[in-house]
Structure formats: structure tokens, C-alpha cells
């Protein structure tokens, strides 16, 4: 089934965390009398509180839902449950019933201006290099985003006009309301970013500076997104992805693959709002290029374990539009242990990271493999080229402290604005995964 969403997209359209919790039990295939999906629609019948089952349908291209239940909340828990089942591959492909097809045809939003081309046919085209997002499609999406971006700009303006010391900054609703508007405007990634910044308020003595820097980057992104048609294709795609454009996995997988021996060098789990996000960092042996595979788990779901740190495979990765780090894994053959990666000095690694950040200043994580010593205070890495603060939990710091008794360390790290987060300690005959791990009470064991 092509064009299937990712779990985070379902969460992004949910009106609240409680709605997802209510939907989860209904997402089991046994709950549904019938289900089906095609390249535009998902539909099903589910028993509810009334004698007559509810008919539910979702137009997953235009993101419109319908349900015969009495709930005033949209999307209702039945629509969310149907989407969850679809995302998990529990909904079979089938031709839509006539009533659903009629609704699907009628639910398409009208064109937003007379000269705007019709939305492209969402059905998969024969294999062709699709890497850049089609400009017409992009223009259509810009129009949808514009309203949210203008609201974001106004909100940012208000924050700086009133000041970060204003009590409104400390209220979560100030941020959450904006995030909800951005979700409505289908700028899910911007919404997540706003919620992440909200989490910085009041944390540490210097939180005003940290929040202000993030507000500046939000402004930069919003401005870039508002001028998207004027940007070069690759940058426009990168901005689009950073604001939350949804790219079909099938389109990504239909792109030209990068074939290499890919070494899984690091893993990092982060809770983002209601979802646990796993980033796996891979590096190509021949190209030396980095890549990132993202996976997600909602409450009590298992995170993807298909890319253990310290392994490698010969195979294809497909980059998302914009030629950034995010990839999907295609063909995989010949799995084996990863070899010890080439390491750089701290200055060389930060120089490379700085170049990438200069291209896309909103990037907030980048990988590197470095060889350096642990500082005497145990809180920084140091080598002849300089020192960088470590951002790590007690366990990772303890592992580094023990390992450092033997001399300099080879580490795969994740650069974040606050410093370097150690992910993997490379020893002579093994790797030690010390990246941040998901809260075991949140995710299920695989």
C-alpha cells in the first residue's frame, strides 16, 4: 500500500493525547467488521455504543475524516483507530464501496485559486527519480501552510514585543495553542519544534537565551517557508521537510538509491511529545556519507530494532527530498559486524558540522565520529584541537570514565546545540551502545 502514513502523522492530527488513548483499543483488527483501503481512502465499520455499527472513512491524501458516530470531536476515536490500524498494515487493499468512493470524491477541497493546477494524481507513477518534490505540489502545500506560518510569525512577534519575562511565556497553553494551529496548517514538524521549545522554559539559569535562539530559528524557518517558491529546489525541499511536509514513503523508495556498505554507528532515543523517536545513524563505507533512519513508537509500542549498533549491511538507502540525512532503508544484503569507523579530531568534526548547520541552521542534531580524551572533570571531550562539553546521562558518563583510564576514546557522537552527546564507544573488538534509551515504562519490549 503506497502513501501509508507514519505513526507520528496519526498522532499529529489527533485532537489530544486522550483521543489516541481512546483509539488504541479500537485499532486491533478484531474490533472491525470490515476494513479496506486504496491509494486515497481508508474505510471501515466498527461496533460502537449504538445498535448500528459506525461507518468510518478517511481521505488520507487530503486528510479529511468522516464517521457516523455522535462525537463532536474530529477526527473521532474511530477515525484515529482506523488510521492506526492502517498505519500498522492491518487494513487490506480493496476497491472502495460506492458510498465511500462518492464521499471521497466529494470531500476533496476545492482549488485555492483559479490558476492553481489541480492536485497531482496521488497514485504511484512508474519508477522515476522523484527526489525533488514537484514544484506544483509544493506550491499547493505552501498555500495550505501559509496561514499557519503567518500565525507563527505573529506569535513570535508578540513574544518579543512583550518580552520573555512576560508570564504568558511560562504558560504551556501559550505554546500548545500555537502548536495546535501549526498542526491544523499541516506543519507538524514546526508544531513539534514549538513544543520542544516550550520544554526549555524555566530549565537552567540560561533558559532565556536558549529559548530566544530557538525562536530565532523558528522565525528563520517560517520566513524561508513563506518564500519557498523563490528558493533553490534542494533548499526548498529541506525547508519543506523541516516544516512538516508529508512525503510518501513510496516516493522516497522510488528514488535513486545510494548503494554502499552501511555501518550502523549510533542510536539515540528521544521522547517527543507523545511519541518515542529513535534515530539510527549510519555511515557509508565507500561514500563516507551519513544517513539517519527515523522510527517511532507510541505508548506501549515497540521501537524498531532492525538496525543494531555495531552491525553493517550491504544495501540501498533512499534519501528524502532535499538530500538531507533522513533515509529509508531499501534492499539489504550481506549483514555483518561493523568495522571501526574513521575518527576525526574535535575541531575537524565541528568544522564539518558547522558547514552543515550553515546550510540549514535549523538542524539540531548531526553525527560525527571523533577520537578524543575525556577531560579530567569527566564532563567534556578534549584533544589537541580543543574541548567540547558532553551532554550525557550518568550511565554514559560512567562508561566513558571507565574506558578513559586506558587512553583516548573513539566515539560516535551526536552534536546538539548544547554539546556532544556520546552514542557509541568503539573498542578494539566491540562497540558499546551508550546512547540515550527510551523510557522502558513507555515503550513495549520488542
Amino acid at each position: 500500500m503506497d502513501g501509508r502514513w507514519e505513526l507520528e502523522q496519526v498522532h499529529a492530527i489527533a485532537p489530544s493525547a486522550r483521543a489516541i488513548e481512546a483509539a488504541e483499543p479500537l485499532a486491533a483488527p478484531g474490533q472491525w467488521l470490515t476494513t479496506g483501503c486504496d491509494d486515497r481512502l481508508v474505510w471501515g465499520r466498527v461496533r460502537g455504543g449504538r445498535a448500528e455499527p459506525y461507518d468510518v472513512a478517511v481521505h488520507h491524501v487530503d486528510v479529511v475524516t468522516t464517521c457516523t458516530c455522535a462525537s463532536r470531536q474530529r477526527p473521532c476515536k474511530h477515525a484515529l483507530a482506523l488510521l492506526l490500524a492502517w498505519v500498522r498494515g492491518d487494513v487490506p487493499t480493496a476497491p472502495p464501496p460506492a458510498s465511500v468512493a462518492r464521499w471521497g470524491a466529494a470531500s476533496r477541497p476545492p482549488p485555492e485559486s483559479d490558476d492553481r493546477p489541480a492536485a497531482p494524481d496521488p497514485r504511484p507513477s512508474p519508477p522515476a527519480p522523484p527526489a525533488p518534490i514537484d514544484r506544483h505540489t509544493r506550491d499547493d502545500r505552501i498555500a495550505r501552510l501559509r496561514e499557519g506560518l503567518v500565525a507563527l510569525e505573529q506569535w513570535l512577534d508578540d513574544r518579543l514585543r512583550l518580552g520573555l519575562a512576560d508570564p504568558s511565556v511560562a504558560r504551556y497553553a501559550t505554546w500548545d495553542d500555537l502548536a495546535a494551529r501549526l498542526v491544523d496548517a499541516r506543519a507538524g514538524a514546526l508544531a513539534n519544534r514549538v513544543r520542544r521549545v516550550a520544554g526549555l522554559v524555566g530549565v537552567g539559569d540560561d533558559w532565556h537565551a536558549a529559548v530566544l535562539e530557538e525562536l530565532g530559528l523558528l522565525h528563520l524557518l517560517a520566513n524561508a517557508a513563506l518564500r519557498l517558491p523563490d528558493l533553490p529546489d534542494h533548499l526548498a525541499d529541506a525547508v519543506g521537510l523541516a516544516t512538516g511536509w508529508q512525503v510518501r514513503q513510496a516516493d522516497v523508495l522510488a528514488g535513486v538509491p545510494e548503494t554502499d556498505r552501511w555501518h550502523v554507528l549510533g542510536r539515540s532515543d528521544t521522547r517527543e511529545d507523545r511519541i518515542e523517536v529513535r534515530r539510527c545513524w549510519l555511515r557509508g563505507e565507500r561514500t563516507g556519507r551519513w544517513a539517519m533512519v527515523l522510527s517511532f513508537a507510541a505508548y506501549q509500542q515497540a521501537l524498531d530494532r532492525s538496525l543494531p549498533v555495531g552491525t553493517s549491511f550491504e544495501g540501498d538507502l533512499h534519501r528524502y527530498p532535499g538530500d538531507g540525512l533522513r533515509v529509508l532503508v531499501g534492499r539489504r544484503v550481506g549483514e555483518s559486524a561493523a568495522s571501526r569507523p574513521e575518527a576525526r579530531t574535535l575541531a575537524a568534526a565541528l568544522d564539518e558540522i558547522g558547514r552543515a548547520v550553515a546550510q540549514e541552521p535549523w538542524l539540531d542534531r548531526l553525527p560525527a565520529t571523533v577520537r578524543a580524551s575525556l577531560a579530567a572533570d569527566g564532563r567534556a571531550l578534549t584533544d589537541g584541537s580543543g574541548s567540547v562539553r558532553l551532554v550525557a546521562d550518568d550511565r554514559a558518563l560512567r562508561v566513558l570514565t571507565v574506558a578513559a583510564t586506558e587512553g583516548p576514546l573513539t566515539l560516535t557522537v551526536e552534536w546538539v546545540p548544547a554539546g556532544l552527546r556520546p552514542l557509541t564507544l568503539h573498542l578494539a573488538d566491540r562497540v558499546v551502545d551508550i546512547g540515550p534509551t527510551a523510557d522502558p515504562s513507555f515503550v513495549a519490549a520488542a
Partner: protein
Amino acid sequence: MSLDTVWRDVVATALLGTDRREPAVLPPGRLADLVADAVDPTASRRLLTTVAALAAVRRSATAPGPPVAPRPVEPHDPRPLVPVAAVDDWWRLRREWQVLEPEWLQLVERHGWRLPPDVVADLDLRPPADRGVLPVPASLVPLLDADGTGLVAGLLDDLAAGRLGPAHRPVLVNLLARCRTDALAELVAAIERWEARPGLAHALADLGSLRLRMIEHLTP
């Protein structure tokens, strides 16, 4: 004026808000030109543009601080690191069969292995109470050693007949964590031959196989 000074001034203005404090004029240079190019109509918009430009510059200009003193290196330890397979056993027994921890550590010591840093960190960071081991009184150890084979036959009979259940589990687990390995191997092999294994027998076989494997991995 350095970038840090400009940034501190910008943060101070943002803290108070442009309704109360006019943003400072940037010193001449590329940054000032960039902000001027944006032609923002209000003070708050000008500050926002300044913040965005400064944030982009500060992040992309990320560079290491001056080198600092490294942690001293200790004299070379010639012992080989615990084999990778044995470290995998460690993490498995930590999750499921903590009763085997003392023996794993004894084997490491006895055979002259060096602990890897993740295991040392794990041992250091865990509260001492979290070991999950029921110590076997020293007086019982010779008994376990002497009675190994007879023990297996009796255990198998009782497990097969369903005379042993969850109430006996802690005793049996501690017994299998301490009994002779030949008796243990016999017990595990016998249980694994059963077509239908009661839950308790299955758990005991799992414990037994992990213990046998761990001994094999740590014995040079």
C-alpha cells in the same frame, strides 16, 4: 563589539520586550547589513531578524573551546577483555536471571578476564540491594555438590508429575544456579527432550542453558 556581547544585549532586550526597550543598533558589518536588508517595520520584527541571524551564525560557527587537561591514563592492564558473547550473557542474566551474577563475576576473576566499561558502569551505578540473589548457606554447598545426579532424577520426576509449582520456584532457581554443571547439563538436556514442558520446567531449562553457556564463554 564581539558577537557574544551583541548576543547578551539582544537577550536582555528580548527578556524585557521591545515595548519596553528598543533593540540596540548592531555594529557595522555583515550582520547589521543583513538585518537592515530585511526592512522590518517594527522594533520587534527587527529584533526577531537579529535573533535569527545571530542564532544561525552562533550555531554554524560552533567550535571547540581550548584544550583542557585529560583524565590521567592508568597503567596498562594486560588482561584480555571479557569475550563479547560473555558480555551478552551478562546483559541477559541481568535482565532475567540475576541469581547467576555472582558466578559470572567469579568466573571473570578466576580466569583473569578484564571487565568491559559498560559492565563496570552497570555494577557501579546499581544499588547494592538490586542483585536479586538468595544466598545459599555455606553448609548446603557440599550437599549440592555431592547430590547432583540424584537431584536431577528426583527433580525430573517431580516436574513431570506436576508436584513442583510456582511456590517451589525460588528454591529450584537457587538450586540450579549452584548445582554441579554435569547434573545441570543432564537436567537441561532431559527437559529439552520433553515434547510438552510445564512453564516451570521451561524456565528452569532456560536458566540452566544460560548458566552452561556462560561457563563455556568464560572458560578459556
